């Protein structure tokens, strides 16, 4: 069974004078352990789709199942709780809570999940180690470079072992070296922990690493390729 199954979803933004049809009938299945890139031109609906996959927004029409759960059936409070326990997020930039250190940021979700302190710290340090930033554990985001911040964000997303991780253009603000490093780390986490990653990107280097590329245009999926052996 797929982790995520999206069935014919539509998304219309009604707040503007002219309603915007951001998604126009999207069907998509994501399997466990996938490393999938969603690509497409600006305004094609990538962020809109990821927000729906991540339970941050609901489709105007159609259903989204995460395993057996239809997200449409959840109350706002249940949805928040569902995100906390099932979904990891890495955003484009300024992901971290500015007043918490790298370690505290990494622990944050575990703390919300009420994981005991010892276990929490151990897990956080393990992941900071894994993303190569353990020596900066006590630095606040403001004292870290953009690439380092994104690595902490990845560590945080992974720490709670979510069912999958949503990353919306995680490398958009990084130079090529940091982009490579971050991709390397995400790919390794995907291998090591078998974590499922879904990211949106414009970046050719990111696409090159993806195991599957879903192309979207005008709110519709127009291509879906899988690359075995990557």
């Amino acid at each position, binding site marked *: 069974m797929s982790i995520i199954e999206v069935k014919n979803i539509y998304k219309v933004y009604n707040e503007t004078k002219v309603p915007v049809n951001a998604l126009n009938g999207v069907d998509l299945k994501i399997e466990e352990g996938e490393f999938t890139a969603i690509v497409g031109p600006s305004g094609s609906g990538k*962020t809109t789709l990821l*927000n729906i996959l*991540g339970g*941050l*927004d609901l489709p105007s029409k159609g259903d989204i199942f995460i395993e057996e759960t239809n997200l449409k059936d959840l109350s*706002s*409070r249940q949805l*928040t*709780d569902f*995100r*906390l*326990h099932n979904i990891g*997020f890495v*955003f484009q930039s*300024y*992901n971290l*809570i*500015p*007043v*918490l250190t790298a370690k*505290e940021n990494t622990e*944050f*979700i575990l*703390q*919300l999940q009420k994981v005991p302190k010892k276990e929490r710290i151990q897990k956080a340090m393990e992941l900071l180690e894994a993303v190569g930033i353990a020596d900066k554990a006590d630095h606040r985001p403001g004292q870290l470079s953009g690439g380092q911040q994104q690595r902490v964000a990845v560590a945080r997303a992974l720490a709670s072992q979510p069912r999958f991780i949503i990353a919306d253009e995680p490398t958009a603000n990084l130079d090529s070296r940091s982009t490579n490093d971050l991709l390397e780390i995400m790919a390794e986490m995907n291998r090591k922990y078998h974590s499922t990653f879904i990211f949106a990107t414009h970046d050719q280097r990111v696409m090159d690493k993806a195991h599957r590329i879903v192309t979207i245009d005008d709110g519709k999926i127009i291509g879906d390729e899988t690359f075995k052996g990557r």
Partner: protein
Amino acid sequence: MLAAIAWRNLWRNKLRSAVIITAIAIGIIGTVVTDGFMSGMTDQRVNAAIANEVSNIQIHNPAFLLNEEIKYTIPQAQKTGNTIRKNQDVKAVSLRLKCQAMASSAIAGAGVTVYGIRPDDEKQVSALHEHIIKGNYLSGKQRFSAIIGQKLAKKLDLGMDDKVIVTLADTTGTITSGAFQIVGIFKTSNDMFDESHVFILKSDMAKLMGFSSASSNEIAILLNNNHSTRSVVRELNKTFKKEIAAHQIVIQSWDQILPILKSLVEIMDYFSYLFLLIILVALAFAIINTMLMAVMERTREIGILMALGLSKRKIFSLIVLETVFLSITGALVGILISISIVYHYSIYGFDLSFVAAGGLNSIGYSSTIFFRVSNNFYLATAIMVILIAVLSSISPALKALKLQPAKAIREDI
């Protein structure tokens, strides 16, 4: 952890937080110091009234209280006085004769209260002998002598060694009068008192009225400590249950004798709390504004917190906590500074003579004020600050709750 985030958030915009903390601190210093000043004024007035005028407790014949006729004496006053002296909290007791009279000189007359006292006893109960500015206090030896207030002396145009004529109605209602030589002039902090009191020897007064000098119609009791007034009154009421039931005596504390003074204390208190409330409500608007700005600035960050799974309840608490921390910090600074200011003026006093010594004396105040703030007032300040902080945080917190994560995260920073 929520608390840690809230506390650290406070220091992200140091200037903004510092401004609001300073505003809260100044507001609190203003109210507390004002309360200290006002309480100091009332204390001083109360203490002066107790020391110079009414003592802590007085005992009379109930009929005397209704119309101050000298014939209503206290039965067995001596014995009663001796019983009272045995009480641990009682410092001194003075038995007096008291009546309304006319004091006159060759040029003017004035309605006064005349006290017949035994100087040795009276000195123990009243501090009036410390306020003699000319001449001496009464002594038992010099018969038909008097001391009068400076204001009265001026009004009657009398000086030392002049004679003041005291005219009063004796027990039968017949008018009698006597001439008393002025041996001393006093000046207290209460001009109204100074203008209306004449003190003579009890034996002279008894003779003038045709009494035995053992008769008394007022027993004044001074306590070791003003705070025990209420408990001593309770004890005495028990001790003299029979006499009270027989309508022979009635026991009153200073605040029953001078109800206006008691109301004054209460009104001052009431105004202090009202002032505190007004200041805090004004500050609430500044706090609301600051927190609304903080929430708006952090739209994206709050969106991310929501995305990560922070419940609405926790988002709400985060904003409330931050507001409470901000306010408590201001309150703490304000209270600490207030305590030191109040402490300073409680020891050294605040000298008002440069503004209005004369004016203050005429309404019964001395010109140096010793500040006092009750623990209750500090407690009320702390509680009200927290209350106001929580109330002020509601609107910013609701604003934060209205954010939708998907939209908030799209927001530019």
